[in-house]
């Protein structure tokens, strides 16, 4: 493989909400612009915490984060956003009292110019939201809310999008629809880092997967490897014994 620069690189990374109590232990992670990377793992494994840390929303962190080759350790969320990272939290990810257009305006708050044009572009990516600009966000369905949340995060033309459990609490049909949208956003040149509970469905769309357990990276491999590994299947994908074929999985930075 030719040498290419990762969009995001996290090394020897520790972090948590209270000083001295680490939830993330010594994690190393790379994300390239041409891939979708999905983090899976049991509840409480620190997946969302890791995502928050990457976008600078965690109060305490140690280790290095770099974005596009630049050291961004300690950068705040607004700074990361301005640098080209879009972030969609799992909950409370839209302004419910505001209209669809106003949500997008807030997403593009830091834009110096071209706000109207970008709103039109982003709405064109989400047909569900188009044609009802003044609709209040609180009246949208769960799937439409997630789409609005993503649309909001796309307002600043990010080159990397961090999604925290985008399909949580959605119907299977809405999950498929949303993952398809995420794939299309990715194809427009955006690196995707997402945390998912619905692991099987997410891994189908992913280039690579990472399994986190107890705040550490336990396993890492390609999406296909993950889906076909009996070990991952039994532990995280709810497969029965004998399902999936054995593929070798590269050991993570388990310390």
């Amino acid at each position, binding site marked *: 493989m030719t040498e290419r620069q990762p969009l995001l690189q996290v090394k020897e990374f520790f972090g948590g909400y209270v000083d001295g109590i680490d939830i993330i232990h010594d994690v190393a992670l790379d994300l390239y612009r041409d891939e979708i990377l999905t983090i899976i793992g049991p509840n409480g494994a620190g997946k969302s915490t890791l995502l928050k840390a990457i976008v600078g929303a965690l109060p305490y962190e140690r280790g290095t984060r770099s974005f596009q080759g630049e050291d961004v350790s300690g950068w705040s969320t607004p700074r990361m956003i301005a640098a080209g990272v879009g972030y969609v939290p799992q909950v409370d990810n839209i302004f419910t*009292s505001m209209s669809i257009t106003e949500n997008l305006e*807030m997403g593009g*708050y830091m834009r110096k110019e071209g706000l109207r044009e970008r709103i039109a572009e982003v709405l064109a990516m989400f047909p569900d939201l188009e044609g009802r600009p003044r609709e209040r966000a609180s009246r949208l369905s769960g799937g439409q809310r997630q789409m609005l949340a993503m649309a909001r995060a796309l307002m600043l033309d990010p080159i990397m999008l961090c999604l925290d459990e985008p399909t949580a609490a959605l119907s299977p049909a809405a999950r498929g629809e949303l993952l398809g949208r995420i794939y299309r956003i990715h194809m427009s040149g955006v690196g995707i880092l997402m945390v998912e509970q619905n692991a099987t469905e997410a891994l189908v769309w992913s280039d690579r997967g990472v399994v986190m357990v107890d705040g550490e990276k336990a396993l890492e491999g390609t999406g296909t490897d993950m889906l076909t590994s009996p070990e991952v299947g039994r532990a995280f994908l709810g497969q029965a014994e004998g399902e999936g074929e054995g593929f070798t999985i590269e050991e993570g930075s388990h310390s």
Partner: protein
Amino acid sequence: MGLTLIFGVLGIADFAHGDKMGWGMFLAFFIVSSEGANLGFAGGRFGSLSFGWGLIVGLLVAMIGVALISVVLERLVFRRLRVTGGGFFVFAIASLGMSIMLRAVVQLIWGPSNFRYTPGIHPAIEILGGIKVKPDQFFIVGITVLAAVLLYWLLYRTRFGKAMRATSDNPGLAEASGIDTDRIRTGTWIVAGILGALAGVMLGLQAEVRFDAGFRLLLPLFAAVILGGIGNPWGALVGGLTVGIAQELSTQWINTGLKPGVPFVIVIVVLLLRPRGLFGQVR
């Protein structure tokens, strides 16, 4: 409206709002009184109104002054309390302390007497059905409606106002969208201060200039805000009118001395029947 703005956007029940109105009232009084006249501000009257340019200058001075007071108090107290993790009640009690302090300073400077912006009798003119209205009251209603329109325009049509609503709706996401929420909070205090000063001057024009006039109005103000729906400027206007009219009409049936209790009855009824108020949104 200032009170509902602070309550709605910042989630703070500002018990000092009444006394900020008091400060606005007295800053304008300073300009129109003899001290101000010495500086060359007073004098003149507009048509049948009881005041002239002096009061307009006074109003501007009051707005700037109260906005400054609000920002200084925010920086000195609320911002620090927020950093240390103070909650709703900490803010409310702190604002109660500010209220007492602000009122005491007014009393120290101007004393406990009653004043008027312009001395003399202001005759009322008769409108429909024998209702008598003072020309000043038309002015007050006009200014109030104008203030509500401007506030609505600010909140729903401008970038800054939308950011205020976003900060109120979801401060974490607002910050993650790159909105400088500290600046938005300061801006909110400035707007609320301007509105408070305006209300104080109008109150002084309508009634009398007295150190505790704003404070006495505080509880009816909260009643109006709750009735109208917290955070809604139109709600505050309609709530204010309803509470005021209900108070005056109540004297037909109950003892005038019981009048101050009317807002509380309204609040209890509203909270029982429609807790989000007339125009409030379900969260």
